[in-house]
């Protein structure tokens, strides 16, 4: 039986993917983070969310 933590993680990732605010690559990185049993730190999330390209003058 999955722990509550795992249940929440699965639903969270599915719902987050639906928001389109986070790309598939980041979702997978979050999945890997949440699958890890250790306690998660803010720095780890910052690292995942910070990987993106910038823009330019339009």
């Amino acid at each position, binding site marked *: 039986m999955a722990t*509550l933590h795992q249940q929440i993680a699965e639903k969270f990732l599915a719902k987050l993917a639906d928001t389109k*605010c986070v790309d598939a690559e*980041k979702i997978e990185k979050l999945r890997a983070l949440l699958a890890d049993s250790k306690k998660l730190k*803010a720095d780890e999330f910052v690292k995942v*969310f*910070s990987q993106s390209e*910038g823009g*330019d003058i339009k």
Partner: protein
Amino acid sequence: MIKLESVHIEEVRGIRKLDLDIRKEKFAISGPNGSGKSGVIDAIEFGLTGQMGRLTGRGTKGLSVSEHGPHVDTAKFPDAAFVELRIYLPELGKSATITRKVSSPKKPKIVPADSDVKAALAEIADHPEITLSRREILRFILVEPTKRSEEIQSLLKLDEIGQTRSALNTAQNRLQSAHAAATAQVQSHRNALQLHLQISTLGSEELLEAVNRRRKVLELPAILELATDTKLDAGLSTTAKPSEFNKESALRDVKSLAEAEKGFPDLAKTEAAGILADLARMETDPSLLAAFQQRSFIEKGLSLVDGPECPLCDTPWPSAEHLREHLKVKLSKSEEAGKLQESLLKNGTAIIEKVIRVTGLLTPVLKLAQGQGDKDFAELLGLWKADLDVLKTKLATVDKITGLKNRLEAGWLKVPEALPKSLRAFTETLNGKPDQSATLDAQTFLTTAQIRLGDYRQGMRNSKAADVARTAAKAAYDTYCAVLEDELNALYDEVQKDFSTFYRVINEDDESKFTAKFTPSEGSLGLDVNFYERGLFPPAAYHSEGHQDGMGVCLYLALMKRLFGNRFTFSLLDDVVMSVDAGHRYQFCKLLKTHFPDTQFIITTHDRLWAEQMKSAGLVTAKTSIAFHGWTIDSGPLVESNKEIWDEIVAALEKGKVEAAAAALRRHLEYVSRLLADQLGASPQYRADGNYELGEMLPSVLKRMKALWGKAADVAQSWGNDADKETAGKRKAFLSACNAAMSIEQWAVNKAVHYNSWANFGKNDFKPVVSAFKELLDCFRCNGCDSWIYVTPRISPESLRCACSGINFNLKPKSK
């Protein structure tokens, strides 16, 4: 999960040496207070988890498994204290043995050391809540909602989820601040670019128009489209590239800084005042200050806990769980400090944005000063910029903001006093420069424009990236909170239903319509229960202590069911239903039997009546229960059904300890009398308190046994079974003979056994008493299997039997 097959305990708590045959069944341990029941629970819990709940938690400061786990006489030899458990793992279909020494609680010996067995045992070790003791039972019921929420979330291991939510929140706050800083930086670059280009709006059309005007002067082709790789100075000779100094642009940069300087005193005044107000609050409330100062420290410590030693100060704790609990309590006290922290960071971020703006203005001037060889001015601006860069860093963390009080009071920007004068002087120097030729002006214009466009583009990329990161982090946090709320609500709803169902089973006679309602809100969990359909009230409002005890156990069972589902196969219930009355205890047995048929409960009780109720309700049997009749520091628990009781009595007599021998005999007779009265259906005079004396119990058992043998002989005759008739007759006669012999010794029995008046007895006086009782009790046993004789069924018995059926007499006569 697991089931216990057998237990071997040596030198743990109050136990010297004890073996229990648990048989994967529900098991009851009874005995008076101080007889060692909880010691068994401690030992089993230790064997499974490496912890002893009684040595942790509130009121246990100074206690530890390593020091207080071993028997008091072997405290200095913890190697001698160990528990060996034979367990069965239903999911794996395997049995295993786990041996754990008090001297090395984290290194149990597991045989077989298969990885799946180890994983299953590691899971159990992570669940000390398999033990529910009396002192813990009401922690779910009679606590304020915030505490209940903590207790239940802790039981359900929700702290891991809380940690994830907290980390996501911190991440989104940080990325929010980073985005604000990046936006401010873009604005700064944008201003610098616009200032240089002398355009009011920054669009590609305006930008190209300004640039192409200079390119035309240089007879360079016009740039028709601004692409991401467009170079504004494309075509300029790379070998003879002009300096970046453009007089007109330089004058505008200096002027821009000079004009901004007038508004410096009022810059971010409100935010600075906000920080100062928060700092003042902390100063006037020292406890807040302490909580505030400890907050990040404790958070850090909490995240680092990986054993019973404090990671911050190396202080040893009984367990990591104990330490975490201590830190969490401290952390909860700093909630207000947390809000203060948010406020400080918000104002800090706002000031950072202003710092970036100012730095954006002074940096071009600094470069000009350096380029023009104005060392003093360059040094002044360089030092100021370095100072502002440090300030920017300090404003990003709460700890460092607290050290900025003096600076914020004195004017956070710390504008160099000589700035206005130096700016004026530098302006004069620039004005004194010869006008640049149109060609040189165009060249330097394009070079500087390209540099500033590059800065702006990089800032844009940074800002866009920060925005994407911020948006993702916010979406992640919001989504996680929404999912968490939905899941917790569903969980509480499920637990609430199970809790109500279980409680109704126990109280179906008077509260068959009982309902309960959880009210979850952020950080708390309200609980109201229905009182005789008069409405919902807090559990302690009207319900009795016994009912509250029942609620505690029911909520625990509901939570365990939610936590483990069908894998809830093992639990230790240490004296948890003492306040529940007799009628409801039968119902409690029904609950455990019907709703938890596959769960092995090890139940202790000091109440002999309750122990017997468990048997008569069919929850446990004689084989799956044990009774302690006392405890000594030398022997540990004294087991009532101990077959070696006669050896113990003889040994005591040999040592001249008549007193001890008589006490052991009396306890054994009490135990056997009660057991036989139950198994044979004897009829002592009923006592509501169940406190039967040996003097009334034993005669009724003798009378019943005689009657049963007589009936067995009569029934055998009715069926023409001469052999059984003869055997039953002989048994009856032998019983009478033994009883007569015992009566001969009655003078001694009365004094020594009944009235504890053994002062004048010698061992030779007492030996005949012992022999007489031994012979008498042997009349109630099977010679083959050594078990006690019983009737079945209990009501209107049809046969008289023993466990091996070596004794099996018909009690149902042939109908005439």
